[in-house]
């Protein structure tokens, strides 16, 4: 079970000790953060990774900021419990006559559960919209292409073998496009609803398998792949980690151009490992940089975003990691990274 972080913000002394006992009662292994200021509530600096926020009703602005905060995916950021009389539609409010550790502990547990279910609900609704959008919109073009190809094939003179071969190739390409789209979308949905159990992974073996899968593409662009001599063990799901590497390396090959140098690396970071794929291509235009890792459940809201990096983001998050992009404009090129938890035996 993951560690829960609770913050008690600006609580009056009459509420503070009871809330602290309740937090320990509800979640015995929780990290409790005491915050006397409201700084960081919106920016998230001091409260990063927080699950439950306990506030008093003395500061309406703070309540408003706390209850309306959303994360990068547009999902409610944390569960909020207000100790006081002012009610809020977006948070559980507990009046002073009900302040006792046992009751508050139940409220805290319930608020956190409700928050997690709400996030899950938003995410799944977003996923459904994305699947609908991808199937209804992205499939129309290749299906239409097959349809039109068949119509053209009917009227094509039999002696025009060159055109006939081109049309058949079109049908094959469009079919492959449809298969790939269905496979990729289904993969994300299956992974999200059936997370599986992480195991100890030898990253070197996963990367070697991916490089083997991409052998033809590597040779086609004449790429040089530089890998580290030793690899760490991480905790993850083999197939997902394979897909993450495949997307990042194949992006580097696709966008790096002929003769691209792709450097694959890693370094310890906190309790995990940060992996990176760096190329010396033209990099990413600053205009599209903010939308690179668009959350899969938000993909329905855009027409242009590709699936690859959204898949990387979702699979990384599901394994307790995060991903990022760093421009290396001074040297030219792009650096994509992701983290995974270290394996602990």
């Amino acid at each position, binding site marked *: 079970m993951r560690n829960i972080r609770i913050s008690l913000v600006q609580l009056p002394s009459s509420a503070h000790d009871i809330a602290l006992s309740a937090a320990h009662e509800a979640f015995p292994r929780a990290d409790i953060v005491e915050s006397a200021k409201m700084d960081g509530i919106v920016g998230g600096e001091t409260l990063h990774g927080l699950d439950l926020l306990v506030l008093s009703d003395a500061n309406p602005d703070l309540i408003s900021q706390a209850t309306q905060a959303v994360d990068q995916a547009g999902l409610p950021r944390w569960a909020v419990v207000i100790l006081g009389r002012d009610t809020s539609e977006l948070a559980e409010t507990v009046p002073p006559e009900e302040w006792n550790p046992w009751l508050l502990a139940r409220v805290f547990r319930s608020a956190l559960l409700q928050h997690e279910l709400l996030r899950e609900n938003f995410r799944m609704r977003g996923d459904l919209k994305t699947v609908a959008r991808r199937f209804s*919109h992205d499939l*129309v*073009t*290749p*299906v*239409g*292409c*097959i*349809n*039109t*190809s068949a*119509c*053209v094939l*009917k*009227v*094509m003179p039999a002696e025009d073998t060159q*055109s006939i071969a*081109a*049309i058949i190739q*079109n049908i094959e*390409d*469009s079919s492959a*496009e449809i298969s790939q789209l269905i496979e990729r979308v289904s993969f994300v949905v299956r992974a999200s609803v059936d997370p599986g159990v992480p195991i100890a992974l030898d990253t070197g073996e996963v990367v070697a398998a991916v490089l083997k899968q991409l052998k033809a593409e590597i040779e086609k662009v004449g790429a040089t792949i530089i890998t580290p001599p030793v690899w760490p063990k991480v905790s993850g799901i083999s197939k997902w980690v394979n897909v993450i590497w495949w997307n990042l390396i194949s992006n580097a090959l696709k966008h790096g151009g002929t003769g691209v140098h792709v450097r694959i690396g890693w370094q310890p970071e906190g309790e995990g490992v940060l992996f990176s794929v760096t190329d010396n291509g033209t990099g990413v235009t600053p205009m*599209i940089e903010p939308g690179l890792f668009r959350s899969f459940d938000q993909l329905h809201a855009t*027409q*242009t975003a590709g699936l690859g990096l959204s898949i990387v983001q979702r699979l990384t998050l599901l394994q307790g990691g995060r991903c990022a992009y760093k421009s290396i404009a001074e040297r030219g090129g792009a650096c994509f990274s992701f983290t995974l938890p270290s394996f602990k035996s």
Partner: protein
Amino acid sequence: MNILVVDDHLNLARVTALALRALGCRTFMAGTTAAATQLLRTEKIDGIFLDVNLGAESGLEFLSQLGAQSARPPVIMFTAQAKDEIVVEALRRGALGCLAKPFNIEDLSQQMSRIEQHRRERPLG
């Protein structure tokens, strides 16, 4: 007739071009507005088939840019989203017609007849 097909989806551009060739046209293909602009400069184009969505670019915006030119070839827009508002917008911006995807060779032939008629009524310089 020389027809320019502007579509970021290579397979669809290719099959449209093949169908137009079967109808007796000479065809050119462009996947971006920059490539289309270049072809319009270097080739004598009699008609354009232009996709509404060009990946990160907008076919409708390109249509407006073309509209500002004095003697531009007639444009048929094709779209995967056969929505009335898109058709209305395309016509408002000066498109000669709209073609919904997927289309067959008869649909294409009808649009070619419109281009031919337009050329007869308004010959290009």
